[in-house]
């Protein structure tokens, strides 16, 4: 077992013995990746936080079952995925909006729009928070979690083409917001 892996195993063993500080340590290390995954698969921040708590609880209770065979992050995401599925299935959240796929297929040229690079990072971040869940999820999974289109499609349970179109439409929607803000400013 590699040094990094045995360190991870040791951390999990400490959690299994009930050491609370060890869970805090684990969360500090994997916080962004874990929450990024949840923001990428849950419709909103509140749901993501709820699933995060369920996930951490499941990690706490099941720490002894981690044997170091896979990377800890992979294992954690697996636990998060299970919890997300439980929650989302229970709530029967709506499926993807089909109309967005049609918009892309029509091949309409993009209306002239200012570059997103005119915005600051913070402004864009605020705008991303106002996007629809599907758009935001696609951005987070691909750009933050670094998934390939195929992996993102699997996580979201949609066809690969839907991932591409959601990304494209997210960017389009953000440009729309930028244009609207500029118009208000004039």
């Amino acid at each position, binding site marked *: 077992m590699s040094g990094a892996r045995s360190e991870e195993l040791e951390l999990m063993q400490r959690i299994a013995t009930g050491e609370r500080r060890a869970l805090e340590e684990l969360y500090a290390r994997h916080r*962004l990746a874990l929450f990024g995954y949840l923001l990428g698969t849950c419709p909103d921040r509140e749901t993501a*936080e709820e699933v995060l708590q369920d996930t951490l*609880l499941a990690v706490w209770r099941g720490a002894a079952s981690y044997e170091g065979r896979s990377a800890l992050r992979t294992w954690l995401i697996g636990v998060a995925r299970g919890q997300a599925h439980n929650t989302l299935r229970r709530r029967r959240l709506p499926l993807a909006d089909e109309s967005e796929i049609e918009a892309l297929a029509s091949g309409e040229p993009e209306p002239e729009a200012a570059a*997103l690079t005119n915005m600051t*990072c913070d402004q864009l971040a605020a705008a991303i928070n106002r996007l629809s869940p599907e758009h935001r999820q696609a951005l987070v999974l691909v750009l*933050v979690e*670094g998934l390939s289109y195929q992996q993102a499609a699997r996580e979201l349970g949609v066809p690969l083409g839907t991932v591409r179109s959601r990304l494209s439409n997210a960017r389009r929607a953000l440009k729309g917001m930028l244009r609207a803000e500029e118009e208000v400013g004039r």
Partner: protein
Amino acid sequence: MSDRHVSGALPAYANGTLPPEESRRVREHLRGCPDCAAELAEWELLSAAARAVVAAAAPPRVPAGVWAEVGPEPHRAPRGSRRPVAAISLLWQLLVGQVPLVRRAIWAASAVTMAVGLLAALFATTPTAGGLVLGLLAPLVAAMGVALVYGPENDPGLEVALATPTAPRLVLLARLTLVYGYDLGLALLATLVLAARGGADPLPLISLWIGPMLFLSALALLLSLLLDATAALLVSMGLWSVRLIAAADLGGGRPSAVADPLDGLWHNTPLLLPLAALLLLAALWYGPGRERLA
């Protein structure tokens, strides 16, 4: 290659998940296409913004709701009051844990020897004479047991004991307590039986052997650690034999210039006890330091 094709691939290009061949094509296209290059810049900014969104939204620490579900922290008494109880409990566990690691022969041999001694004592003419027998036997039994308590040649469990986090000294002390306590118990029992049989007071009988027992055992322990168990046994037995001979000599009624003082020494409990304590400390200080696994 149309712009739209590359457009669709740009997010994957930005996060590095495009297959190498496609990646190469996109790179070449970007060289000649300012529009797509501008769009790539947008995707890179979007990456940073999305990361900022995650960082801002992620709770900074494990949410309180988790701990609420986990339940209250196990009650910890303030350190001061907890310590003695916890320490006693730990020591008890240590003692009990050492029982299987002590050579089994010690238990049986000690018991048998004391039993034989007791029988001999019971058949003695007077309780005092019987007490003398016990007084001569008990210290030897204890010393031999102690000599055998610690050391690689004796110790099936030594490797295990040394490999644990428990300090070797503590292990040694635990073993000592076990064996010595056991032998002490045997001696006390034998003395009580003898006293009851003869209707005599047990205390003087006990005082006959308690000093020598402690002293000889401490000496045997130190020797066992400094040299080895065999040396400790030989020295203990040799020393004790001298005493036995001297005692026999005295029993003959003739005063002896050599035997008298020596015998007096063995009876001088207030002297023997501190000496024994010193020897024990020396053994604990010096002994376990020598036992190191490679």
